[in-house]
């Protein structure tokens, strides 16, 4: 589904990602795990073509990202935007229906129906008209996920969807992601809570100081590998 070959992304002098390669399978729930600063967000942005890459190749569904852009849905970190922006929940979810080709046309009835449906899937259909500045952290995350769902994509890339959200939201989102996998979607999630990795993900991409490891959770998510990936910063699990 997602094949990365010899990818290097540098930020000024720093080699955030240096010559990494991996191949992730389709129709799986994949956890992207790594220490702070190991380049998880950078990797997602690189895959989505949001950062210049110094070397390497990214193939999604066998194509370059430009050609499959309408089949991808990216969920940025919740705190990447200003939630005081004057907009309603529905405004944000409708963004999910935007495509460059039809950008200047009005939203169709179909777009609005899909947006409402997406809000129902994340169980906040009643908040459609609410201003986004009035939302809790968990509700904000649900709105972001609803926007991605509204794209009706095949591949979903989520950046820390469980960061600082309530338990109910985490459960709702997780159940939804599992349902999506059952209907054939491919989902990669940047995740920081090591306690839930085994329960949540079929497959793990572990970012290490000297490269990456990818494989079934049981094979990759081992104390030895984690010690290497997190060094002294690893607590007890």
């Amino acid at each position, binding site marked *: 589904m997602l094949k990365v070959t010899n990818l290097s992304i540098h930020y*000024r002098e720093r080699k955030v990602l240096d010559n990494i390669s991996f191949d992730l399978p389709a129709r799986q729930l994949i956890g992207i795990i790594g220490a702070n600063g190991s380049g998880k967000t950078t990797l997602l*942005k690189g895959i*989505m*073509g*949001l950062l210049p890459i110094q070397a390497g190749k990214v193939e999604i569904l066998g194509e370059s990202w*430009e050609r499959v*852009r*309408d089949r*991808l849905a*990216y969920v*940025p970190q919740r705190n*990447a*935007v*200003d939630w*005081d*922006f*004057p*907009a*309603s929940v529905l*405004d*944000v979810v409708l*963004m999910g229906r*935007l*495509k*460059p080709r039809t*950008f*200047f046309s009005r939203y169709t009835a179909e777009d609005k129906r899909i947006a409402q449906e997406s809000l129902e899937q994340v169980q906040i259909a009643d908040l459609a008209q609410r*201003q986004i*500045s*009035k939302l809790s952290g968990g509700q904000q995350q649900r709105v972001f996920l609803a*926007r991605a769902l509204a*794209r009706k994509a095949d591949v979903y890339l989520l950046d820390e969807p469980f960061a600082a959200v309530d338990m109910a939201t985490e459960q709702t989102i997780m159940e939804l992601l599992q349902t999506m996998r059952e209907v054939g979607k491919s989902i990669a999630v940047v995740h920081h809570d090591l306690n839930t990795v085994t329960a949540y993900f079929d497959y793990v991409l572990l970012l290490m100081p000297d490269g990456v490891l990818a494989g079934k959770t049981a094979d990759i998510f081992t104390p030895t590998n984690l010690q290497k990936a997190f060094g002294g910063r690893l607590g007890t699990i």
Partner: protein
Amino acid sequence: MWLILLAGSLVAVSNALLGCWLVLRKSVLVGDAISHAVLPGIVLAYWITQSRGNTYMLIGASIVGILITWLIELLQSKATMQQDAAIGLSFTFLFALGVVMVAWIGDKVDLDQDCVLYGDLAYIPLDTRPLWQLGGLFVGVCTFLYVAHKGLWVTTFDATYSASIGISTAFWHYALMGAVSFSTVFSFEAVGAVLVVAFLVVPAATAYLLTENLRKMLFLSVIFALLSVFGGYALGVWWNTSLAGSMATVLGVEFMLAFGYLRLTNGQS
């Protein structure tokens, strides 16, 4: 009198509407920078064409406006300067250059420093040509904002996401800054290079205090802009002082009243 009020309203509303987007993008200072930086462009155009209010002057100054937007971006990305430092460096340099140029060639053309800094609405009835310009500006700004509404809103709210679905954030950034350049240059003759900033910032900032709805914010900013034009005109005539200056003063008072109102009502609830 009505011509002055009409000219003032056209300037105020055009800039207030654009200002809403600058406030939302947290780029108000870029608008400030543009309004100052166009000065050398304007002076140069005066000098070359020996006349005011012609199309070449407007185009030339607008180009300088877009140039400084680009310069600010460049300083940020290539010289790794912070945005505020990049803005401060670019616009003070260009504005100073403009001031020096006015002093240097000021006696050769009809252009004095007071006029550049404060503009003069009071001359409008004697020469109505600027009125057509301002009318054109108003229609242009409204058309631009109507067409660009979606592009500005998605790239302002979530630039990363917009880029991920293939919408150019740079395009909309430069489109807005280009519009601000045009608006600043068109307004310059009426209200001057400094006070135009008040119209860009204050109505939008006041409206932003009072509402969480984008359409209401745009609407309120227009109301505040119009109030300041009419109130400022009355004040200016009464005190026999600069009209643009008293309009900007009324804007400041409006903001303080809105802020006070907000504090009072919040205190009650």
